[in-house]
């Protein structure tokens, strides 16, 4: 096998598969970042979304119900961060760290309590999200995989331009950004910063929950304990890398998806799984190092 075989059309399909859950969560994280709330709870929300989606799809045998429940569960779960940080002046980092652990605990606990299994839940009754193939377009070489996605896949990709328009071309976006950058000025203009912050966090919960649904009902049709496997963290890094800009978020998520997919393929060439698994994280760190120089000072003052 030639090493260049890695870069085939299949690669694009698998890049998209790893990309979409991260992109959904990262767009949510971006909204939070824009209103000035540092959301590192995405990892936990994805996990909750994945579990809720699988459970709902199992009980209703309907993927739409699964997706909706995953979204609602993500929103409900993100309320911990939203309510805690906005109305109780809790620290977002503390809350999010606890949320991530709570998510592991709740999903593993309910896995045993409801389905009586440990580790993996797989059942033919779980209805996976179908792929919607767009005729003709899906047959175009190389870009074909872009038109053979799940509904959530299209949603994720469309959200990039949509969020750009909303953030930079609409009054809503102006208010969101105002709340994050100059809360006092926003308040003077009659915008209630707390309400915007809460809704941004809830929106991120909904999106990360959808990311979880895509992970557990789209990419595979099963739930694994801890199946978010660091994707939420990658989404957090993607937001920071991109300085909360939609296009940047897409590129950062793409980088991760690409490394992930290539790494997986490199296993065929005898590279052990452990080393390829580490690749996306190392690559993200490398890019973080390269990009950081530019936005160091402002971020450091806020976060570190």
């Amino acid at each position, binding site marked *: 096998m030639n090493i260049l075989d890695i870069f085939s059309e299949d690669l694009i399909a698998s890049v998209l598969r790893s990309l979409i859950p991260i992109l959904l969560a990262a767009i949510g994280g971006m909204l939070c970042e824009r209103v000035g709330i540092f959301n590192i709870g995405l990892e936990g929300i994805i996990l909750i979304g994945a579990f809720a989606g699988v459970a709902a799809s199992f009980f209703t045998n309907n993927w739409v119900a699964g997706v909706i429940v995953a979204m609602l569960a993500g929103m409900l779960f993100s309320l911990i961060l939203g309510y805690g940080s906005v109305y109780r*002046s809790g620290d977002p980092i503390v809350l999010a760290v606890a949320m991530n652990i709570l998510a592991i605990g*709740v999903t593993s606990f309910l896995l045993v*309590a409801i389905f009586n299994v440990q580790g993996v839940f797989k059942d033919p009754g779980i209805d996976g999200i179908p792929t919607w193939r767009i005729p003709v377009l899906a047959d175009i070489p190389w870009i074909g995989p872009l038109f053979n996605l799940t509904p959530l896949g299209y949603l994720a990709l469309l959200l990039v331009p949509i969020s750009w328009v909303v953030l930079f071309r609409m009054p809503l976006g102006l208010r969101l950004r105002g709340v994050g950058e100059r809360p006092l000025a926003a308040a003077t203009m009659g915008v209630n910063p707390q309400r915007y912050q809460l809704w941004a966090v809830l929106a991120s919960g909904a999106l990360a929950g959808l990311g979880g649904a895509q992970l557990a009902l789209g990419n595979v049709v099963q739930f694994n304990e801890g199946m978010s496997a660091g994707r939420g963290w990658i989404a957090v890094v993607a937001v920071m890398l991109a300085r909360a800009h939609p296009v940047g978020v897409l590129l950062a998520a793409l980088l991760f998806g690409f490394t992930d997919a290539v790494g997986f393929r490199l296993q065929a060439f005898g590279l052990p799984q452990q080393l390829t*698994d580490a690749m996306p994280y190392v690559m993200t760190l490398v890019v973080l190092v390269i990009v950081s120089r530019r936005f160091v000072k402002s971020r450091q003052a806020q976060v570190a």
Partner: protein
Amino acid sequence: MSVPTVTPAPVAGPSPEPGSNPTGGAASRALRRALRWLRGPVPVSIVAALLIGAVFMLLAGVNPLEGYVAMLTGSFGTGMGWSSTLQRAIPIVGLGIAIAIAFRAGVLNLGTEGQAVLGSLAGGLVAVYAPGPAPLILLLAIATAIIVGALWGLLAAVLQNALGVPILLSTLLLNYPARYFSSWLIRYRLDEPTSDLIASEQLDPGRQVGMLVGRTSGLADTLRDSFGSTHPITAILTGVNWSLVIVLLLVVGTAFMNRRTKYGFESGLAGQNLEFTRYGGVKPGPLVMRTMAFSGGIAGLIGVLIVIGAPNTRLVEGHIVQTNYAWTALLVTLLALYRPAGVAIAGLFFAAIIVGSEAMGRELGLSPQISAIIQALVIILLAFRVTLPKFRRRAQTGGSREPGDSPPSGPSKQPDETASSAGPAPSETAAQTSEGEAGR
């Protein structure tokens, strides 16, 4: 503030407060203080978290009372339970101290897992494979682990100082290469096929950090004869290794360092107000380096103690990662608000919850993950009141602790509404007012 005997100070932790009542005896003051602390955020959060935990047990069809009894007997009810709880508390408290040192200085080190993993790998390799006299190798293994852990921590510090990569992200991302590298090395290079585990060869018993009292020693027999073989004292002394003493020394040493050394002063200041520290003539860069070296070094030490501490004898794949010690330790640190003694107490408490949940899980067919639920809920409920000093933008009258003594949630924990209304700290009102202003 109509009641003159109430001290107008924020009530949060068990820290001593100046009593404003000159007539009351020391005993009644202490009692009042204890009562007020019980009304404070920490106990209230714990009780509320246990109540929510009970709801989860009900969901699983288990009587919560039965569940908590099983949990308590599992962790403190038997000699076995005592020794497992203490044994489990060692890494949690140790990593908690590592995190506390960093967070206290405002350095958000989320990478103690990676630092511990690499420390345990390097130290474990020395302990298992290096030739030489046993005591020397033991010391060498520990030193190696500390150095490797510190270097992995320093890498994040260098990345922040030189290139501006936030420590929060770099430490987090550095966990993964450490985890996967260690897993690869143990699985493909060190795996010894005769064992069921994916693990290295066994180390020489002389190079192990032994139990406080060796199981086969004469003293152990004496203990068994005088207390019985299942008595807690016997179980603890023969079932917990010397790492316990090392971690206790670490706790005391850190408390001393925080209070009595120049570094402790500077790092505490940096955690509260970096700008002020800079004006005071402390360079933040070197401080971050020193902090990460300390924090990573301790994490590395704890890592190797897990590998070479009895009863463990091998480098096992995923040993530190799967047990989730680092994240539990982070919760413990947050609960303890970075104070070493608090980390020890909270660490013991969380270890007891973990061990108890495992016992409960076995007995009642539940997932032991109920412990994660309870632990996370304690922190969340507490955080509904707490802000980290580093991130607080508002009035800081309450010092680094959370203001107020009214419970965050759960109506059942307000023993006396009128009494607590006399007590709310002025800082709480101040914080709320300024918060309101900022929000408008």
